[in-house]
């Protein structure tokens, strides 16, 4: 039997990987992909606890996270298309229209 802490540690490593990706990459789409990595890390955590505590609540939360991730991807990619089409920027650090 694998200890629960192994799953939690794996999820922490994946989460930090995604966080680093969000912070250091300059490409929009890669940044969104790294957000997906973070969501997956959270999902592993929820499902692991749900399995070890013999409850259904964690898996429900994971299912809803997957649904929210689908919506987030659709809206985020639409925003990226708008930004590209308007020639506003090609990298994350060039979007500064709202900067005061």
């Amino acid at each position, binding site marked *: *039997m694998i200890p629960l802490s192994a799953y939690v540690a*794996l999820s922490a490593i994946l989460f930090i990987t995604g966080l680093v990706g969000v912070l250091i990459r300059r490409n929009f789409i890669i940044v969104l992909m790294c957000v997906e*990595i973070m969501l997956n890390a959270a999902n592993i955590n929820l499902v692991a606890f749900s399995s070890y505590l013999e409850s259904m609540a964690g898996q*429900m939360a994971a299912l809803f996270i997957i649904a929210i991730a689908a*919506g987030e991807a659709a*809206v985020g990619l639409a925003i*990226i298309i708008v930004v590209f089409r308007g020639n506003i920027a090609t990298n994350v650090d060039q979007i500064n229209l709202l900067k005061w």
Partner: protein
Amino acid sequence: MVLLLFSYFATVSIVAGVMTVALRNPVHCGLALLTLLLHVAGLFVLLNAEFLFAVQIIVYAGAILVLYLFVLMLLNLKTEEKYLHRKHVFLLFAAAGILGELLLLLMQSPYGGMKGQVSPKVVLETGQSQAVGLTMFSDYLLLFEIVGVFLLGAIIGAIVLAKTPTGLHAKADES
């Protein structure tokens, strides 16, 4: 056997996650993300969550990732020379520090709590998908409906945002 499978899935998903962050070509990053998602689905099977395994492959790997790759190819991104921020070395050190702290805390924490009603025996008797369905349409019905409305809003928002703004230009030309 379970330990072997877990170590395989865990190792490959960590490597794929690092490759998603580190690779230069965006399409390669997308394929590394696909590897990560498939191996996380394998982890779900190890955790007796077969319904989530199917949803992960169908929705994540099948729909969301295809959307990403579609937009990548549509926008025809060039692989840039500088694909990282300037101060990324500093951030890498900070992340390594945070990760070490986090793992230290996680290893020290006790894990316990009240057990729920869905023990592995019950799951094996009735089937996991049935258990998920029964829970979702009884205790989580309101959340289910809210997520439906959310998805409708997301679809409408995405269409409105990505629509070619012909109407505005046509009006400007007329006047």
